[in-house]
């Protein structure tokens, strides 16, 4: 309990330091920092339209991918390839969505989502096989497959999936039945609800199931878990990684069926990487990922508003995101050193976890 309060403290500190640095930086660069932060806040939370249509809408892929990253890392595996799995899911979902002519929405919508899940899972299958068969580090294989996925999308929208007139590098629009309904009175699609449900399911798996407990045991002490004889490490890691890919693929499907309605080359502004920060800031806790996902989405939504209303380049916010993660990691490192000193001094391990 003590350590989880400290973790929350570090997360809040990181956020505060990030925003403070933004304000100081803007002030030094000659901008009106107060006006800038006001624009940031307005763009993210200032109106119901901004909150639902800019912030929450952006949070959907961040939450889903963040959950997937947490799932894999709980088992000790790093999925850096969510961007690729996102695109694989988007390709599959767009393909189904374009060819769903004449389907009823209650068939088309689940099919599109399922296609995204299958796409993301398949994209993860290769790194899983490489890891279990040949010991190839998933950090490297998933990262490199991002580039392959981006090239695949480029080829798709200029080749097999290009819109019928053959002019523009994008797919044909998906049929109406395959478009996610909006929550009443907003531009926020149903995928947000799905993301909340996914977070609840993961919370339950981590906190209440035997499988979730063993996954965590495996992540925190692979040797000990294996030696105990109760954990089949390889299979669990495979399932966690594939689940991670599935969630990223689902995010890709929602982006196509809830936002863009067609496949494009630059569908993701780097969700797959931003979501790593989301999951780390939330300490891999699914319920907290919902919050941190909204925080990062708010920062990016606010970044646009800062440029629109205060004339400040939106990239400054990416610096803030980077600073937040750095402070977080530094805080953790400091906490670990403090803990080690405590252990050495008292000879007892107290409050680890």
């Amino acid at each position: 309990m003590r350590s989880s309060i400290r973790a929350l403290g570090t997360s809040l500190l990181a956020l505060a330091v990030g925003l403070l640095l933004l304000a100081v930086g803007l002030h030094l660069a000659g901008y009106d920092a107060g006006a800038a932060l006001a624009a940031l806040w307005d763009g993210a939370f200032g109106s119901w339209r901004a909150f639902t249509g800019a912030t929450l809408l952006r949070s959907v892929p961040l939450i889903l991918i963040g959950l997937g990253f947490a799932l894999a890392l709980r088992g000790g595996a790093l999925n850096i390839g969510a961007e690729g799995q996102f695109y694989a899911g988007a390709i599959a979902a767009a393909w189904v969505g374009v060819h769903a002519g004449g389907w009823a929405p209650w068939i088309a919508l689940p099919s599109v989502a399922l296609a995204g899940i299958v796409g993301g899972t398949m994209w993860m299958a290769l790194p899983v096989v490489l890891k279990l068969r040949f010991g190839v580090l998933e950090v490297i294989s998933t990262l490199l497959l991002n580039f392959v996925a981006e090239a695949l999308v480029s080829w798709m929208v200029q080749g097999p999936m290009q819109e019928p007139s053959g002019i523009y590098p994008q797919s044909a629009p998906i049929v109406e039945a395959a478009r996610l309904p909006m929550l009443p009175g907003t531009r926020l699609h149903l995928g947000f609800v799905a993301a909340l449900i996914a977070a609840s399911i993961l919370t339950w798996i981590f906190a209440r199931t035997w499988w979730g407990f063993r996954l965590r045991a495996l992540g925190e002490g692979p040797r000990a878990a294996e030696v105990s004889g109760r954990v089949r490490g390889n299979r669990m890691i495979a399932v966690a990684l594939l689940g991670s890919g599935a969630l990223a693929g689902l995010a890709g499907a929602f982006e196509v069926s809830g936002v863009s309605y067609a496949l494009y080359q630059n569908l993701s502004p780097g969700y797959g990487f931003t979501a790593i920060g989301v999951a780390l800031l939330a300490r891999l806790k699914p319920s907290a990922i919902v919050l941190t996902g909204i925080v990062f989405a708010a920062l990016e939504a606010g970044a646009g508003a800062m440029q629109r209303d205060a004339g400040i380049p939106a990239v400054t916010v990416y610096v803030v995101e980077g600073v937040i993660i750095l402070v977080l990691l530094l805080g953790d490192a400091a906490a670990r050193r403090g803990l080690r000193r405590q252990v050495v001094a008292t000879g007892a391990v107290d409050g680890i976890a």
Partner: protein
Amino acid sequence: MIAARALGWVLAGVLLASCATREAPAPFRVALITPGSIADAAWNSGAFTGLGQIHDSLGVPISHVEARTPAEQEEALRTYAAQGYDLIFGHGFEFQSPAERVSADYPAVVFIITSGERVQGNVAPLIFRLSEASYLAGMVAGGLTKSNVIGFVGGVELPPVREASEAWVAGARAVNPEVQSRTTYLNNWDDAALGREAARALIRVGADMLHHNADAAAIGVFQAAKEAPGVYLFGANADQTELAPSRVVGSAVIDLPRALLLVAREVQSGTFTPRVESFGLGSGVVQYVPNLALDSMIPVALAERVRAAEDSIRQRDGQ
């Protein structure tokens, strides 16, 4: 649990804040959305300059934002429309379909799509026939090339980019039927390192005259040309002589500020009707601008032919 409660507080706060939002009657305002950085010394920077001129000449409030992904582009269009902007420039073909979706909800707002496709409701395109200027650049290149190989670096293979590339080759062949051409597409508008690699590859296969239509990625093309002796190039979208004064023979230029200002004036005065507005050499908005410092390179006969071609295109435009 804490998380759920915190989320509840945030929601409550937002609801309160949104109730308090006030709607004031606004003056005429103009917004620009670019698909990339305005530091590209070409397509986006030209539009941003135009926005500044709208501010200076018409004295109206302006705003600009970058939006790279389809989701951000639609959101930016919708946000400006909801904020009561009267004229919104979506700077590139990618804004056509999102603008059509958004304009259905905001019939009083004028959406201008540069390099757009068609008129729908209050969405209207500005079309720039940059290919006419690229044709002239091609003629000069065809006359100057020693290796008989010319190269073109494109960003994304969009219709206006493909047309510029084809016109560049056609212009070169009109002067020099022996010319071989190579074209590379980067699938990217920002990656200068990629542009540099593509240009180097073209130079390796013998190209000594280069042209581009790749926005910020083309900065790398200029770097590659500067490093290779005997290689010259032609700028695009803006007068890019500055980027390599001893290597840029000329530029195929769009006077974006002039076109944007023209439309803004009409919309402000209420005389604007949605239509397809197309600019070529005849309008003066599209031009071939030679680098006067390198004028001595160009044989008189070649300069004559280029001028004659320009005149005949202008005349065709005029009819």
